[in-house]
């Protein structure tokens, strides 16, 4: 799939854009703080209705403006679509082909995008919450059921934690309702965990393949899922997972009631990246970690293709100049002819031009974009 036309109104410092994109490679050159990341963020938002760098949609509305409007025309192999997102102070609305969608889960997944930026190294080094957010975002965009269960999980978890707090403070004594909430939460948790195992299994397979392409060391990359309920195993059925979580809630009931919070479940799970069986967070070099992060992104491209028969857009924010020549060409060869790619960079130096065939080059300055003739 590719985005051939994009109209932006009032997204951060992008006041008004109306651009055609190349189906293959688009390069955006600009100094710092001109709007390069903002543009990729806008494309990402059109696809996922959320930003990769903030949880507050309001932050995206250009200073002094009332609302933000994004409109994109997408070509897929079978159909073409017009997607629209409106962000206001009160919330956001989405349209597919001018028909407003009451549910975001109906909209997300129409356009897929994978974004890779230097901060993605945090995926390996950072806190577990980042890796859970990664799973929720990436699996949510390829699987509507995952999106549905993950958001339902957040909601019921909030209800249960609120009720636990009321029990902890002695405001209520009714444990029957706590049991109901635990049972309900365990059922949804099982659906989330079952799908995480499944998608991580695929992702691990593709990531290990990509890693073999872009690294020179010959190590083997694998991704493992670590549920916080440690009795759960990779080949458990949804029902088995449900029973184990329920038993775990039951066991920890007194602790949960004292702490006023749910101490285990998908919101406490983690994933681990391993090189030759060793934890990459602890043992991999900076260069190896960078290759892992890149491999995971490339794996997502393959995973999306496997599940939807379409290649997602690839958004590369400031990463080309950080990769050495070998990794750059490995990356570009890997995606060549598959994904529509958007590359941002502060200068052309360090980019292996000869590998990029006929890119369309744009310049960004103070939120305005100008088009340079094809070179």
């Amino acid at each position, binding site marked *: 799939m590719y985005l051939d036309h994009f109209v932006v109104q009032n997204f951060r410092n992008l006041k008004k854009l109306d651009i055609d994109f190349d189906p293959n490679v688009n390069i955006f050159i600009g100094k710092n703080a001109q709007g390069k990341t903002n543009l990729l963020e806008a494309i990402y938002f059109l696809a996922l209705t959320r930003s990769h760098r903030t949880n507050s949609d309001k932050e995206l509305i250009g200073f002094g403006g009332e609302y933000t409007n994004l409109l994109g025309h997408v070509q897929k192999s079978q159909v073409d679509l017009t997607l629209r997102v409106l962000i206001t102070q009160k919330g956001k609305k989405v349209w597919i082909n001018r028909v407003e969608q009451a549910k975001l889960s109906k909209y997300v997944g129409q356009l897929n995008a994978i974004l890779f930026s230097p901060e993605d190294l945090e995926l390996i080094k950072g806190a577990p919450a980042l890796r859970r957010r990664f799973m929720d975002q990436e699996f949510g965009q390829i699987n509507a059921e995952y999106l549905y269960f993950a958001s339902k999980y957040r909601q*019921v978890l909030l209800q249960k934690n609120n009720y636990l707090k009321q029990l902890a403070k002695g405001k209520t004594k009714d444990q029957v309702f706590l049991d109901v909430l635990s049972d*309900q939460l365990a059922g949804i948790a099982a659906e989330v965990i079952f799908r995480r195992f499944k998608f991580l299994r695929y992702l691990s397979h593709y990531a290990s393949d990509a890693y073999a392409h872009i690294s020179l060391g010959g190590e083997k990359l694998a991704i493992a899922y670590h549920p916080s309920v440690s009795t759960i195993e990779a080949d458990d059925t949804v029902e088995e997972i449900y029973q184990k979580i329920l038993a775990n809630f039951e066991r920890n009931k007194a602790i949960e009631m004292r702490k006023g919070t749910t101490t285990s479940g998908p919101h406490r799970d983690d994933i681990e990246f391993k090189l030759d069986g060793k934890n990459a967070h602890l043992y991999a070099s900076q260069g190896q970690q960078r290759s892992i992060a890149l491999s995971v992104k490339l794996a997502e491209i393959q995973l999306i293709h496997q599940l939807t028969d379409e290649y997602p857009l690839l958004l590369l924010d400031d990463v080309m100049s950080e990769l050495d020549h070998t990794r750059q060409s490995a990356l570009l060869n890997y995606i060549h002819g598959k994904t529509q790619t958007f590359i941002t960079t502060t200068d052309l130096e360090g980019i292996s031009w000869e590998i990029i065939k006929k890119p369309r080059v744009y310049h960004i300055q103070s939120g305005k974009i100008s088009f340079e003739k094809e070179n």
Partner: protein
Amino acid sequence: MQYPLPIAHLIDAYMRLPGVGEKTATRLAFYTMDMPEKDVEDFSKALIQVKNDIHQCPICGNITEKEVCDICSNPNRDQTTIMVVEQPKDLMAFEDMGEYDGLYHVLHGVLSPMDGIGPEEINIKSLITRLQKNDDVKEVILALNSTPEGESTAMYISKLIKPAGIKVTRLAAGLSVGSDIEYANSITLKRAVQGRTAL
């Protein structure tokens, strides 16, 4: 510039209605000012009347202007079945469909700890006492929305009444995930009533 106080008060009053913002409220307030005096009087009477004359039926919680609502006082309705709904408007939707002729129980909400709504805040206790006092009821149908809160409320109620040996069923097929009964068309509702499953 500030509006004269009576207008400002009226704007504030309109803004308390759901979905009415300042702009709409201001428009409505100025419109009201231009309405014939008689219409305004009728309007204000109607407002007072809903508050004074309408109350919850002491048996089922439906809204009514009579002592006991029309459904509860109708002996021709099937006295062995009670359908539990969230709001009076859900009851209206089932009545409009005309397929169901049993009794109702209106909860006036669903359990939602984060909004401070626990079992005491909605009509659950009155349902339990109603069932304890009345041996005729053989089946309770839980027709709550399939939101997470509707689901946990249904599970909770069924846990409370199951020990009494009453059959508890749930509207299942037909209602899509996260749907509101109010918006479901009557064909989906019919299918839902026919395809209910035991909990």
